[in-house]
Structures are given as C-alpha cells and as structure tokens.
C-alpha cells in the first residue's frame, strides 16, 4: 500500500501552490484543521480560494490567513464577525461568494459523489437565484446548483487510522466528511492516529478511499466562540 501517513502538517501541505482551491472543514471554530492552517501560514502560499462554511475569527482559524493576505476568495455561508475580513471586503481586496449553508453542503457532497448539478429550493426568489436556471418540480420552484471540488481538502477528525479511515467527534463532524470526498487530494489531520484495524469498520465516518494524506496533529487549541454554561 502506498503510505498515506506524513509526519506533520508542514509535510502535508508543502505542495499546495499559489492560487490553489482549498476546502477547509469546520463550523465556526469547531472541527477546523488547525495544524494545516498553521502550516499554510508558514509556507506563505498566496491567492488561495478557500471553501469553508465560515472564515474563522480575527485571530484564529482562516482569520489568520486573511490577516496574512493569503486568501483571494472565500466561498462560505456565513462570515460572521471578523474585522479584518470586513476591511478587506469593503476595500475590494477579497472576493466573497456567499452560498446558503445547505446548498454549500450539498454542492460539496455532489463534488465528491460525481453529481455535476442538482436542484434545490434554497434561495429561490432571492438574489442567490440570479443567473441560475430555475425549474419547477411538483409545483415548487428550484434552482440548479453545481458541484464544488477542490485541489486540496483539509479536514480535521478525532481519530484516524493509517489507511485513512476517519471518525469525527460531536458536532466537529459538520462539513468535514463531504470535503474529504470532494478534494482531489485530501489531507486529514487527526487528534489520534491509530494502526489500521483499531477502528470498528461499522462506525467509520469517512472511508479511507477519500484520504490521500494523514497525520497526527499537535497542540489543538479548540477555541470556543461562545462559552455558555449552566450554573451549578
């Protein structure tokens, strides 16, 4: 078997070139590929198109790559509160393509599953529908939407094995499984890399066929955006 295991994030992302199209897993700061983002900050690769539900915050996640001006375009559903993002957008330094979250998820899923286009009701009658083909099925109007694929998909899982099989934890799953399938090269960073055979085949979330490189990440910060608690 060709070895999928690489030693660290630097090795995993070293051939990501300027102007590459990337997918980055995560919802908010939950389940984001922290190690890969750090490594991309080091390589200094520029002109990136980043497909990610969110754009991080000012000082974490994709927000860090915005600060270093490595991102040319964001394709997201919600870019939240991020002052640097806002500044670049208003200054015309950043292209932004906003997509309904379910459409984004399904376009990525379609990219991995070989479905070049599909119909969804989301956005009908809104500016999202502008320029898109509209079709009626069973009395309801739908937009045609195209698949999304990426040169590299950067995903974060809880556990992974050396064959590339992945298991996510909690709501850190989110966009990661579809992105893993939609990347021409998928790089998985995991909290725990285990030998093949240790994960139960019945509970694999991402089969290894989708993963080309895998490594055990380090120093996960897992920052929390809204720490809400129930008082004792």
């Amino acid at each position, binding site marked *: 078997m060709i070895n999928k295991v690489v030693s660290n994030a630097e090795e995993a992302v070293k051939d990501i070139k300027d102007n590459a199209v990337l997918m980055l897993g995560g919802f908010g700061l*939950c389940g984001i590929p922290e190690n890969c983002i750090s490594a991309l900050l080091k390589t200094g690769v520029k002109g990136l198109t980043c497909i990610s539900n969110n754009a991080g915050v000012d000082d974490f996640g994709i927000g860090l790559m915005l600060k270093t001006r490595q991102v040319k375009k964001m394709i997201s559903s919600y870019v939240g509160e991020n002052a640097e993002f806002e500044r670049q957008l208003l200054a015309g330094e950043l292209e932004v393509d906003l997509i309904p979250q379910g459409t984004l*998820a*399904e376009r990525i899923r379609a990219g991995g599953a070989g479905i070049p286009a599909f119909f969804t009701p989301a956005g009908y009658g809104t500016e999202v529908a502008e320029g898109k083909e509209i079709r009626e099925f069973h009395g309801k109007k739908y937009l045609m939407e195209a698949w999304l694929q990426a040169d590299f998909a950067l995903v974060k899982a809880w556990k992974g094995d050396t064959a590339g099989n992945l298991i996510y934890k909690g709501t850190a799953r989110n*966009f990661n499984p579809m992105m893993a399938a939609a990347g021409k090269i998928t790089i998985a960073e995991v909290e725990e890399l285990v030998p093949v055979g240790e994960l139960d085949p019945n509970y694999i979330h991402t089969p290894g066929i989708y993963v080309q490189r895998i490594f055990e990440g380090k120093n996960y910060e897992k920052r929390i955006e809204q720490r809400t608690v129930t008082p004792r």
Partner: protein
Amino acid sequence: MALDKIGIAKRIAQEVKDGSYINLGIGIPTLVANYIPDNIEVVLQSENGLLGIGRFPYEEDVDADLINAGKQTITMLKGSALFSSAESFGMIRGGHVHLTILGAMEVSENGDIANWKIPGKMVKGMGGAMDLVASAENIIVAMQHKSRSGESKLLKECTLPITGIKCVKKVVSDLAVLEVLPEGGFKLLERAPGVSVEEIKEATAGKLIIKGDIPEMKID
C-alpha cells in the same frame, strides 16, 4: 403593553406540537426552548449536525466539539444523534423538520421574509436561513413589530434583500399574533395583553385583516 423577548418566546412555545422536530434560530427563537410545556416533548435540531439539543453544559463539562448553530457550547440528550452538515440539510430540505422558528427584519403580507442582509452595512451571509425558509412546512417568525425608529416591519413588500418568498405562516411580535394567509394579508389572531387593535393597525404597514373580536394572548 408590548411583550418583551421572553413574552414572545412564551407565546411561540404554545405553538409547538408534541413529538415534533424543530429548528430554532438565533436570538428569541432559542429562548422558546425554555418555555415549552412539560407535557410536550420535542426534538431540537441544530443545523451543524445534531438532533436533540440539551441544556448548556456545567462549567467542567464544556466541550469545544459540541456546539449549536449559534456556536454556543451545549450538551446532548438521551436519544441524540450526530451527523454531517449534508445530512442535516437533507433533513431540512426533505421536510423532516416540522417547524422552523426564526427572527426577521421584515416580513411581507404574502409571507416573504428578509433577515440576512442590510445593503451598505456588513454582510455576514445567510448561513442556513435560506435553506430553512425554502423547506420547512411551518415557519413562525419571532420579531419586533416596529423598528427602533418606529417604522413597521410588517410590510406590503419587503424593502431589504429577501431570504425566502411566500414561506412565513405565522408572526409572533411584541404586539400581536398574526397568520399570513395563503392569498396574502396578515390576519390578526391575538393582541398582546393591553395592546389595542388600533395600536396594531398603526404598527402594520402591510394588509391587516381583522375579523370579529380579537382576543388577548394568554401568557403565564
């Protein structure tokens, strides 16, 4: 007297049917969960991949890998299930989520909703709102009847970029409960305690339909 946010949440909680699957938007809708009667059991969906949202965790149980769509740390319940965002919006688009409760900046008399963008100001993105309003069989909006500057937010036509068309079934505002009729128009169902029909008329720019006596809301 106009309802406060909690009052609106309490009134909407009365709309919730036993055994239903519900998606709650950020803000007032999230509060609804606190006022669902004890004899009613529902399952809350979080579009980032969870069915069965529980309470906020105790400090020592906070888990960065378990958040709701508002990015708040949460817990799971017995019977919860986790899944991907594609599965989550499959549930939504496929009509498996029975009720969506969300906030709005404007609602039109034919049920259009605007709640995602104010041109010229910061654009944050629509998140899952467009999928939700295009898909759920029942959509209830929680909102203030008027803007801070006193202008009606229940309009003939939305002035802001819309999120979805002909989708809102009911509006619960600080002043009233209104049904959006299939043929168009806000049908006044209930008044907030102490609020007169005249006040609601004055606050509603869209077509308001008033038939017979309009009862006051009953809120504990």
